């Protein structure tokens, strides 16, 4: 297991995110059947697997957008499943980007970025707007600040969504199939932003179908199938020499 951040000798550094024996059921249907996962600070983890296998649910359990049926979710050592934890405070530290962008359609791009910092962190308007413009420039959308989400292409919306999440200075970013709803020619512009983010040392969990992205930027690849982590390891190793049959079968289908 390689970490993006250099682990110091001696005591193992506290993981950024840790899942301990996480189970999740929807009614009678058990989607996660015991997930154990430790993600180091600065690590980029790509989560792959067949649809319905539980990888999106796994990701949504990290910020408890889905409550867990059993097990623990820890963020920087804090057990999020403990009683009395204010999830709304915790979620400020976890940025999330969705397949369907989820931008507020009635707010301009600039307002989408500044809403949470201003309302939740009580930051000054001028300072947040300055930051928003800087982030928009970083994702290549300097001139779109006054536009509205539905006036933008899918790729542009997704880059705005990433910038919106970054406005809260998250400690970890969750990406839930962020390129799956995009036209093929728009995928690379979003991946470029994610590459930039990964290289800046951000801790990232990415549920993805982009094997190229996983291979190039992932510190680790996690293959989720049937509600468990069926295989994990160095992306190149897992992609080129999978150990499990089910991993091999899945990769044969997607890499064809």
């Amino acid at each position: 297991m390689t970490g993006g951040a250099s682990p110091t000798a001696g005591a193992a550094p506290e993981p950024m995110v840790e899942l301990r024996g996480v189970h999740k059921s929807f009614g009678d249907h058990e989607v996660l059947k015991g997930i154990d996962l430790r993600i180091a600070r600065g690590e980029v983890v790509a989560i792959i697997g067949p649809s319905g296998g539980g990888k999106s649910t796994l990701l949504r359990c990290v910020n408890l957008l889905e409550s867990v049926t059993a097990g623990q979710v820890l963020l920087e050592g804090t057990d999020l499943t403990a009683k009395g934890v204010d999830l709304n405070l915790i979620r400020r530290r976890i940025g999330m980007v969705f397949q369907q962008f989820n931008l507020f359609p009635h707010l301009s791009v600039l307002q989408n970025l500044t809403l949470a910092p201003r309302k939740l962190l009580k930051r000054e308007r001028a300072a947040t707007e300055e930051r928003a413009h800087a982030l928009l420039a970083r994702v290549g959308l300097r001139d779109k600040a006054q536009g509205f989400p539905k006036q933008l292409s899918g790729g542009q919306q997704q880059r705005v969504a990433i910038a919106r999440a970054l406005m809260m200075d998250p400690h970890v970013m969750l990406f839930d199939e962020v390129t799956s709803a995009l036209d093929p020619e728009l995928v690379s512009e979003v991946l470029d932003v994610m590459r930039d983010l990964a290289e800046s040392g951000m801790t990232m969990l990415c549920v993805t179908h982009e094997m190229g992205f996983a291979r190039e930027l992932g510190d680790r690849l996690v293959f989720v199938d049937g509600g468990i982590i069926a295989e994990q390891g160095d992306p190149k190793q897992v992609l080129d020499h999978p150990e499990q049959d089910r991993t091999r079968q899945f990769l044969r289908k997607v890499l064809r």
Partner: protein
Amino acid sequence: MLTEPVPANSALGPGFLADGGYQFHWGVLGDHLSELWDGLLRTLAISAIGMAGSVVVGVLLGGAAALRIPVLRTLIWLYVEIFRNTPLLVQIFFLYFALPDIGISLSGFTVGWLSLVLWGGAYNVENFRAGFQSVDPAYVEGGRALGFPRLATFRLVNLPLGWRAALPSVTNTLISVFKNSSFMIAISYPELTETTVNLVAVSFRVFELFIAIGAVYLALVWLMSLGARLIERRFAIPGGF
């Protein structure tokens, strides 16, 4: 068209000519202009309070229903069921004639606007609830993931998007509230219709008076529809939602 001369004791009212034609005397409107004007003002007063109140009731209770707040949600359901499924006339009679028996005497004016608030409110609860719930859950999730609490997310996401979605059906309800102000004739509250009926009784000018107030109601409803369209345009979201 009758061809025979109409006898003096004909069932046809005054204004009818011997050949059955009708002689319009629009002057009757001018003669009673101040009464009609006062009636219109009362209609506008109870309608305005009724419409505004029903929107407030609709947003607050519709919001609570959409948020599925326990207990409150059941009480709201009960309120909506009662006021949507009983005749407005019965509600008016209840407020005006039944409540005094338990010591609550309300004036005609109060019953006028209150009954419209309660009746229109019940419809608007459903209009707004449906509007709030029609908001794509993805937007709500976007808010929750940023760390907004449930209520704040509702205020920042469901409210601004939901009222836009609800606007056409709310407009319909408000138009009905306005037209139903004429039901106050049942308790002799002298709004426009009651005033007109009284003027007909003394002037016998049925056609002139009812055509005139019909035109007034029609013009005002058109104005309201126009207003709704302007609001829709003013608050349209660039690119849609």
